[in-house]
């Protein structure tokens, strides 16, 4: 490895922002969005290569159908769907990234989901490929997708009772000052499911689990805040 040398950055590149390699103009897309979707578009925001807005979670199917089928918009591809947890006292969020031939920008659609009743309509009717995205979000975040006909856990085992990517699920850590230090993962209060033993050993359907979680999450929010 002696021949490999490390170059030092020149002074003119220090933190200076260059123009994006392919600058985009979001104007036509923003105009079409406000025209076609009207009041559904909230908090419209544009980045260098992304157009983003929030929608009401109850309107997700209507908005997505327009985005996909309207010839002016034509967002034919669901590039990504991800869940975000904003903490035990806040909400969950489902973030969709879409792509269209017509517009050279990524479109990001954010939908807030109530933590106490984490339900949102499934988009598997529009894109079959949303199935694994939604199963993963259910598995990791505990978001229930109404209308998804195969909402099983995908990574964790079927009898697992917690949601690892929620923010109140802390990783065990050897550090003494870690909030999860010395706590047995099964006894961590934030993952403790009060209905754990009530109906053992049968495995419960997502619908029943959601019911449980609604009560559990309510108690946790009240106690933790």
């Amino acid at each position: 490895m002696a021949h490999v040398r490390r170059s030092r950055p020149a002074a003119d590149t220090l933190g200076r922002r260059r123009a994006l390699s392919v600058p985009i103009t979001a104007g036509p897309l923003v105009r079409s969005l406000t025209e076609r979707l009207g009041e559904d578009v909230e908090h419209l925001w544009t980045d260098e290569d992304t157009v983003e807005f929030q929608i009401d979670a109850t309107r997700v199917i209507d908005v997505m159908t327009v985005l996909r089928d309207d010839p002016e918009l034509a967002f034919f591809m669901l590039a990504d769907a991800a869940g975000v947890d904003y903490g035990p006292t806040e909400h969950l969020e489902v973030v969709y990234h879409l792509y269209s031939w017509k517009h050279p920008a990524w479109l990001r659609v954010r939908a807030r989901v109530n933590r106490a009743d984490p339900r949102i309509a499934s988009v598997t009717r529009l894109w079959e490929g949303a199935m694994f995205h939604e199963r993963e979000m259910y598995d990791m975040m505990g978001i229930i997708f109404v209308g998804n006909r195969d909402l099983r856990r995908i990574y964790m085992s079927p009898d697992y009772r917690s949601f690892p990517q929620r923010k109140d699920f802390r990783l065990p850590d050897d550090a003494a000052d870690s909030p999860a230090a010395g706590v047995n993962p099964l006894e961590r209060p934030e993952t403790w499911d009060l209905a754990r033993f009530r109906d053992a050993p049968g495995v419960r359907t997502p619908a029943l689990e959601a019911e449980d979680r609604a009560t559990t999450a309510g108690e946790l929010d009240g106690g933790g805040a």
Partner: protein
Amino acid sequence: MTTVDPDIRIPDPIELDAAEEARLRAAAGMMPSPAGPEYSGFEMVGIPDRPPQTEREREMYTLNEGEMLINLGPQHPSTHGVLRLVAKVRGEVIVDMDLVLGYLHRGIEKLSEYATYTAVLTYVDPMDYLSTMHNEHAPAIAFEKLYDIKAPPRAEYIRALVVELNRVFSHDLMMGFLALDMGGLTPILYSFIERDEVVELLSAISGQRMLFNFFRVGGVNWDVSDEFISRLSTWRSKVDKLIEMNEWMISENEIFTGRTKGLGVLSAERAISLGLTGPNLRASGVPFDVRKAHPYSIYHELEFDVITQQAGDSYARYMQRVAEIKQSIHLIDQIVDKMPHGPVQAQVPGIIRPKPGRRAYGAVESPRGLYSVYALSDGGPNPYRFRMRDPSFISLQAMPVMMPGLLLADTMAVISSLDPVMGGVDK
């Protein structure tokens, strides 16, 4: 296409008495058989030991007359890692298929929330372990957007160079593995010889042979030396011949074409709906390539076309890879010609703290398709949320769509043509 014979009878399952079954289950370390005749017995080993949770699961695990379940994997050499497939078959013909994932789940997304931005770039390496450079590219793009910084031009050229080299050996291995899964042992040996030459090149530049850890936020770790460029041109002078030889062994082989043509056909609409990307989508005739559709790095400065195939079958997916190897080599020529001089890393502090509330999406075209990262910052040194979209995870969903009506023996030919890597699927 083989038709299902409705009169086919399978022999009665082995009849075990309850005590003997309990003894055998205990000896095998299995749970006691739950109540209900439909959930007991060794012959039903694919059926979960519990009632179905969803409509689809009930449909999948309910057997009609003459049907049975065959369990493939997770420890099967042809499943490209630890993928478990449960096939519902009627005789030799597949009726339905279920995928069981999670055997390699390491929770990289969650772990990344506990690591600094720089350290996250090392965590993503072992995801899709055949396209490590691409794994690092997308987070690097996303974090640079978060932190409002750009890599110097030379660094962008070096990035493009290494990801195209990575694409060459990844597609090259796919050619060999596809042949291997259909019983041809020789091509994989040549594939590994070719891969080794590329890996030698990449290890000369990064110091690692598999998990390169080469990208940094704001640039790359090392500059390329003149010696590297000369080794690259030596490799370049022989690679066409090697690819040609491998292709000559596989592409025209009668057994290979007989087993892949017309197999696992996906229409363009279905492929888009299923979320397929990359070579799998282009083999169905959809010209979607992130390098063209949403150019990143320096791809807007390079000349190339989006290659597509029309057939959408396993053979088209194979031919698509062959064409993309040649295209990548063509791109490497352009990159080496155009590579500017200058620094390879912008000055970035050791611990990065992007402004709170910022969010960024970085997407690249990995050998398996659209690989993207969505990162959120809360102002701290670690990402608040780090989301990866792995293309093989999504493209595996095509299996239950393509398989019904095909023979059990074709499973491997179809799955191998999708080229999934379980490290990426399970994250």
